[in-house]
């Protein structure tokens, strides 16, 4: 098991952090998705192709590297479809599709992945060389930005993963008002939208676990940046003639938050390592990552906001951006209890 970053991974982290600090500082984050920033992220840093195998034009890196990058995009609250496209790439590496993977690696294709729950499933019927897809998706991450939607759909031959062209006919997209103003979701209605079958969509394909790990890496970044922000403020804000960080009421809370950071970081490293190296440990590691890091991230973001005092409650201050991203991420893959239930099953309790 490897829980420590290699020198190369540290360099990757520093590069991404410094890049985002320059091209996507927080004042810019408030303006939302900037396709130029996204293009530079993929062009100059090649991030969209990070986990795409080399044979498809990517870097063929592992989850250890992906986690490093997502932690930085999380810390920067990067707007736009980077996480959505990463989710799609994760699904595509499980049902390798040259065209889309190459497009993602080259930064040409912005994609997203939806996992409809229960009866909200889609139906795909054969239609001139592909399929026509019908159904409604209530909430799709990056749904307005993506050109391609990956989604399971029912056919006569069972469940398949289809790639739907969101730019074509039969697609109605409605942007949703979201708690997180830095990253959008959309309602998508498909009424005979053009799609292409990528392969069968097995129940336990490891995609869900990998999404959980990727999201936890982003959450680790949100947690870390929240803590950094309030620690910095505690060193300059004065109350009753003393820096607030000198009061144990603040100091001890920050120490507890640091303990959460240390544990969250350890878990994300472990889960990323498991995704790369230890498939049998991955399911429990992924569920652990969401169960622990998702909660820790919101708690730290919440306390970082509260410890800012009144200014943290204002729209102008950035604290609420982290708080809202943390809450949105916590429920992104479903109510958090599903991860705990999964853990209970995996532990054979």
């Amino acid at each position: 098991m490897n829980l420590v970053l290699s020198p190369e991974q540290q360099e990757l982290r520093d590069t991404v952090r410094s890049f985002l600090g320059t091209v996507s500082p927080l004042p810019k984050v408030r303006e939302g998705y900037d396709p130029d920033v996204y293009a530079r992220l993929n062009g100059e840093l090649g991030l969209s192709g990070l986990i795409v195998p080399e044979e498809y034009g990517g870097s063929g890196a592992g989850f250890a590297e992906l986690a490093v990058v997502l932690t930085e995009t999380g810390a920067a609250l990067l707007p736009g479809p980077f996480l959505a496209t990463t989710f799609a790439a994760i699904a595509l590496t499980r049902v390798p599709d040259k065209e889309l993977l190459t497009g993602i690696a080259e930064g040409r294709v912005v994609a997203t992945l939806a996992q409809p729950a229960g009866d909200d499933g889609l139906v795909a019927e054969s239609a001139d060389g592909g399929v026509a897809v019908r159904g409604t998706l209530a909430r799709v991450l990056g749904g307005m930005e993506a050109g391609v939607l990956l989604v399971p759909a029912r056919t006569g031959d069972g469940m398949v993963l289809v790639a739907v062209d969101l730019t074509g006919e039969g697609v109605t997209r409605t942007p949703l008002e979201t708690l997180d103003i830095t990253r959008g979701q959309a309602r998508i209605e498909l009424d005979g939208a053009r799609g292409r079958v990528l392969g069968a969509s097995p129940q336990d394909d490891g995609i869900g676990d990998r999404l959980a790990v990727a999201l936890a890496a982003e959450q680790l970044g949100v947690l870390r940046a929240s803590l950094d922000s309030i620690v910095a403020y505690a060193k300059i804000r004065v109350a009753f003639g003393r820096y607030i960080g000198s009061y144990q009421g603040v100091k001890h809370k920050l120490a507890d938050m640091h303990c959460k950071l240390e544990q969250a970081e350890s878990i994300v490293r472990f889960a990323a390592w498991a995704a790369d190296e230890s498939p049998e440990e991955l399911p429990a590691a992924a569920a652990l990552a969401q169960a622990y890091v998702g909660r820790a991230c919101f708690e730290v973001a919440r306390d970082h906001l509260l410890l800012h005092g009144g200014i943290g409650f204002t729209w102008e201050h950035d604290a609420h951006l982290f708080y809202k991203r943390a809450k949105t991420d916590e429920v992104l893959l479903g109510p958090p209890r599903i991860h705990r239930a999964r853990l209970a099953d995996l532990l054979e309790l």
Partner: protein
Amino acid sequence: MNLDVNLAEYRRTARTWLEANARADDAQEADGIARAKEFMARLYDAGYSGITWPARWGGQGLTQAEERAFAAESRDFTLPTYVFSIGLGMTGPTLVDRGTDAQRERFVRPLLRGEEIWCQLFSEPGAGSDVASLQTRAVRDGDDWVVNGQKVWTSVAHHADWGLLLARTDVDVPKHKGLTMFVVNMRHPGVTVRPLKDMSGRANFNEIFFDDVTIPDEHRVGEVNDGWSVAVTTLLHERLSISSGVGMGTRRDDPTALDGLRRLVDTTDPLVRDELVELHIRSRALALFNQRLAQETKAGVFPGARGSAAKLLLAELTMYQADLATRLAGPSAVVGEDNPLSQAISLAPGMALGGGTNEIMRNIVGDRVLNLPPEPRVDKTVPFKDLKVGTQA
């Protein structure tokens, strides 16, 4: 016995008046200023504004018993009195307690009758929990004072005619000893009111900028450099007026309270049921504590600093509820137009940040309820100009 009969009669009369004058569609909204003023005038003329205030300055000169009786009857109605709440709860009582007769004569009756709206100007960006470290300056200029500085977290300021302003008049003495209280004309040139958006995107507060604003010395409240003692009076009235609202129970339509939440989530899941049980336990624990405080108050035992425990618990419960509701509801909690759960999680921190942070509340409970030893203070003896204040490295 006879008193009780009179009180019952008072109560019946009040109810009849309320039924005749309150309107079902009276929302507590700011844009209904004309309606609010018109209602307030009738309320005053009927004898229900300033029930316990001295008759000499325009009040009714009655007792707490009548006030409580009227308040009890009012709970069944929604009265459009929100814009007057600062004046009635804080600045008015301060003027009655500490103003000059001329000030009482000039300000109290129009305030009670709703002819003039008031706001309170204490907090600053650099002085929140630690109000006494405020930096807005008032400099003497003949018979006037000239004010420069910035205030924040000011409710109803955009409608206000008058404000109660705490400003620094001496920087060479320790922070509590160089403050003076004034009544400032909010319509005066140089006063700029700017709405302040909170994290939910709404503007329930304002920032106020003072740029060479002149105040006549006759509008000074209390002695020069004795403003802190006046502010303590105001804050005492603020605490009373907040704590009287505590214990009224959660709003029936709160989507994060148990009754709302149980309709939103899957109660066939035992884990969800247990989370709702926990919510019930915490809500009931606080509600019963508030009811006990209310019963004690009725029996003549005043809550004092124990009210800060109730405020702390309410802040924590509000945050916990909104967090729990969004966790249980899952992805649907954070998208959708005017989603009540999104609004709840956006507003929840406000309860902890308004009226004293949780840390300040714990200090109050520790110092004044448990009588624990105080922290060493570094800010009580230093001249203000040498004191660290606000935000600095």
